[in-house]
């Protein structure tokens, strides 16, 4: 027997389903009388935001970023309601000279109220340690085996300032985790100056471009594109190459090789 509600044995009793919501950070579980096990739930889709909070983000940029993330969450929540497969959980890492968890525990997207990020005065843009922190959360045993491929979104307004080897070391740690390697990795550069080869290496795929926000007003639009990418490419049976082509303007046959790697070893 599992759980305290003694669901069986017992006579058939209408077998009425009910949904249990255990609060933030937990999965919606639907128990059924007469069915073995601890109930069913949708597969988790973990979405981790890595947000640049260096000193350069102060003022209008961080305000626009906070607004845009808060604006993106309802899009993801609406998609979560409408589709038939995933339950979206959000986490966020803020980084400057050092990274820290802004949202450490996976939060159901529908219940998340965005707490604004704050920039670190004179903080640098060290990305490698942020990748390593994300890798910890994606390690086997920390992420469900049944989870869909996670999504990582890196948002920055500047070039990486890691000490020599630091960026690559952090990226290697992330890519050493199966879930990190399999993750859909996206990047938004705030300003053309922030578009760099380092971001391309983070994405790890020539078919997925860095999304450039030329102005703070563009940040929200880019995040909508990100939310669409996360949602559409997670759908069962989706032609992810075609989706990538529509979202990113790259040829579908190129992108299909990117997103089709999960079917056979």
């Amino acid at each position: 027997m599992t759980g305290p509600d003694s669901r069986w044995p017992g006579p058939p009793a209408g077998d009425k389903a009910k949904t249990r919501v255990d609060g933030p950070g937990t999965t919606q579980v639907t128990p059924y009388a007469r069915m073995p096990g601890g109930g069913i739930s949708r597969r988790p889709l973990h979405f981790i935001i890595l947000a640049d909070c260096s000193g350069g983000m102060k003022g209008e940029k961080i305000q626009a970023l906070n607004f845009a993330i808060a604006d993106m969450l309802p899009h993801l929540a609406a998609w979560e309601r409408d589709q038939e497969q995933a339950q979206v959980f959000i986490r966020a890492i803020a980084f400057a000279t050092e990274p820290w968890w802004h949202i450490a525990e996976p939060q159901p997207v529908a219940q998340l109220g965005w707490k604004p990020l704050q920039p670190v005065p004179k903080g640098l843009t060290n990305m490698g340690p942020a990748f390593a922190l994300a890798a910890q959360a994606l390690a086997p045993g920390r992420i469900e085996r049944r989870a869909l491929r996670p999504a990582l979104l890196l948002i920055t307004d500047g070039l990486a300032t890691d000490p020599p080897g630091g960026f690559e070391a952090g990226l290697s740690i992330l890519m050493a985790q199966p879930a990190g390697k399999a993750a859909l990795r996206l990047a938004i550069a705030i300003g053309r100056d922030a578009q760099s080869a380092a971001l391309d290496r983070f994405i790890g795929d020539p078919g997925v471009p860095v999304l450039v926000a030329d102005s703070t007003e563009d940040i929200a639009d880019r995040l909508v594109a990100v939310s669409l990418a996360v949602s559409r490419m997670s759908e069962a049976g989706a032609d992810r190459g075609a989706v990538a082509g529509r979202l990113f303007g790259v040829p579908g046959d190129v992108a299909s090789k990117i997103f089709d790697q999960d079917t056979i070893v």
Partner: protein
Amino acid sequence: MTTDSTTDSTTGKVATWQVITGSARGAAHRASGLPNQDAVASQDGPGGVVVAIADGHGHVRHFRSADGAALAVDVACRVASQAAAGLAADATEDEEAERAGQELARATVADWRSAVAGQLEVRPYTAGEQSILDRSADTPVIPYGSTLLVAVIAARWLVCAQIGDGDMLAVRPDGSSFAPVAGDDRLDGRRTTSLCQPDALASFRTGAHDLRQVPLAALLLATDGYGNAQADEPWQPSVGRDLAELAACRDRHWFGQEVPGWAERCASAEGSGDDATIALLLPGAGQDSAGRDAEEGG
């Protein structure tokens, strides 16, 4: 669906194994217009009972995977029935049973590839399908990609073979459970091994178990749409405990009514949203050699 089978036991009596199956189209597949790409088949005979389930990959590269899964369960049942006849011989020993599992995998891979080739002769790829192959530089067998789980119970032997994701769960009467084939670290929930890969035989996992030493209350085979819907992680202990309890107090008709519903729920938008297929094997009460039925009345 329920089928029955009888198999000789070493007690001199005849034990009856019942197979109850259920398969449901995933909610995500329904929403996107894709069919149920799982398949299930079972067969019983004088040698024993065999059951096979398969999960066609469903991806655009594997555009004939529903056919691949259907061919896989048909081929597997045919090959496994031949294995059952051999296992039913009294003198079958541990090594022979182990070899039977390996031979089951070998013959299934060979016959599945032949079956795919046979279907391609009568249904060659259309120009559109061929362009998908060309774009991915895939061999003709790739579009049929599927997993396969097959189990044989004959005499005192349980022999299993599996390639790809999905689960087999052997449940003891005390509610403890175990996987009758070894795990595969490559199956991380995002990738799977497949019948369509060039070295498929090397990716098969097989196992043989003497049911005199390891009596079972139930054997569950399920595609990953079932396991991916389970909230518990790991889900196997609680499912095993509950199945043992249910097997002790419910008859086959109850399971026959319920199992298809379990598949439906797992495949629903509240579960994995993926196609879900379950095959549940339950031992009935023993019958004597004269065939007088000592089963439950239900």
